[in-house]
């Protein structure tokens, strides 16, 4: 009996930062599909299935010759579209000698790939994180491998009340767990928005150090999740009582845009991309270093906890009992959208399981 897939095909996923791709062959597995990435001589990014059709040798263990990959085992040669252009020992190239190529878009400093039916890949569907490539912001970023299923990271990020406990002293303060939350779900556009607006809060050291604000703050944390892959946390910090102008401008506040791209590697592992963009202290390397180190520490605290949780869940029988409380309202909405996306992409597999 086939098992129900846990991640949704026919979606765009972040595969890498643009800076990771160059003239070296770069392997990365996305949704269980091994992919090799490289740039052509004129700089275009390419994504091909990372297995030679001949004997399944990884193309990432091969070499580039111009814009083609020459398989490191027997020399089968593929062009940027995945078509075989040379077969050793014969002039005829079999009709089926090609590897899959993946639709790819570079946007907002990310390399997005479409996993699913090629003819359904619409770049207009890719959600945006414009700050990451905006000169008005300074960004620090990284990626941590997570040995846990991606759903655990979604759960984790959808409920920021865990900040107080798992990340106390970094980004958590007592008010975070004690402020009312509004969760909004746009059924048509499949967006989840969780707002936590603290009118009068302690300024965590994470922000006191980087903004120079002294005293208490108005702190907004607005999660905007575009399932399955892109998670945005709009963080607004201002002295108490300072609100945005009616026209939407907000010159007296500090903005930090935290971006996560949650990309399943396998059923039990995840690429945890994280970036922090800010619109203040743009050239201050000390602030960059501090934000990078702090956020990486926070991410690693999550990774450690979720790796443990994955082991626990794998060792338990299916259908374990959970308890959901108020703080899980957004997480429950995320799970529902993810389930719906999986079913939409794999109706037969779901029906059979």
């Amino acid at each position, binding site marked *: 009996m086939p098992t129900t897939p846990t991640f949704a095909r026919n979606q765009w996923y972040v595969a890498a930062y643009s800076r990771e791709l160059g003239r070296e062959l770069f392997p990365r597995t996305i949704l269980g599909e091994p992919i090799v990435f490289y740039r052509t001589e004129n700089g275009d990014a390419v994504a091909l299935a990372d297995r030679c059709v001949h004997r399944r040798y990884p193309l990432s263990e091969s070499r580039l010759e111009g814009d083609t990959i020459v398989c490191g085992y027997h020399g089968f040669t593929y062009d940027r579209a995945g078509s075989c252009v040379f077969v050793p020992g014969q002039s005829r190239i079999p009709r089926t000698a090609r590897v899959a190529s993946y639709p790819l878009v570079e946007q907002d400093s990310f390399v997005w790939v479409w996993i699913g039916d090629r003819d359904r890949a619409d770049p207009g569907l890719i959600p945006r994180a414009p700050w990451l490539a905006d000169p008005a912001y300074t960004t620090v970023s990284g990626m941590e491998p997570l040995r846990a299923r991606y759903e655990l990271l979604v759960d984790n990020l959808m409920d920021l009340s865990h900040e107080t406990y798992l990340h106390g002293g970094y980004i958590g303060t007592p008010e975070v767990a004690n402020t009312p*939350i509004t969760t*909004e*779900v746009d059924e048509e556009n499949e967006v989840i928005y969780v707002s936590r607006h603290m009118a009068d809060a302690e300024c965590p050291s994470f922000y006191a150090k980087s903004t120079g604000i002294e005293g208490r703050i108005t702190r907004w944390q607005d999660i*905007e999740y575009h399932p399955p892959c892109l998670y945005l946390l709009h963080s607004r910090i201002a002295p108490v009582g300072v609100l945005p102008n009616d026209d939407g401008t907000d010159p007296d506040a500090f903005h930090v845009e935290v971006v996560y791209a949650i990309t399943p590697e396998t059923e039990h592992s995840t690429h945890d991309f994280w970036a922090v963009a800010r619109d203040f202290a743009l050239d201050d390397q000390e602030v960059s270093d501090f934000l990078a180190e702090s956020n990486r520490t926070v991410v690693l605290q999550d990774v450690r906890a979720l790796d443990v949780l994955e082991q626990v869940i794998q060792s338990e029988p299916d259908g374990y009992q959970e308890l959901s409380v*108020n703080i899980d309202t957004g997480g429950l909405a995320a799970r529902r959208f993810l389930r719906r996306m999986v079913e939409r992409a794999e109706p037969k597999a779901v029906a059979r399981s």
Partner: protein
Amino acid sequence: MTPRTAMLHGDTVFRIHWVLNTDRLLGVCHCGAEHEAEDPVELWDWLLAHPEGHEPRAESATPPPVRRLAGV
């Protein structure tokens, strides 16, 4: 009363507010119907059952502020 937060707009937005100083959640359907519960699972079930059990309340709608979604 604290104004209700509404950051998304659209014709099919469900909202759940954590009611200040209580353990209760207030669900507001896109049709205007409201329902309170302590359990988020129960509240989602009620919202997603729309229109079953939903009695629209004309006066409940808060006009959302203009805010463009960053990620679209």
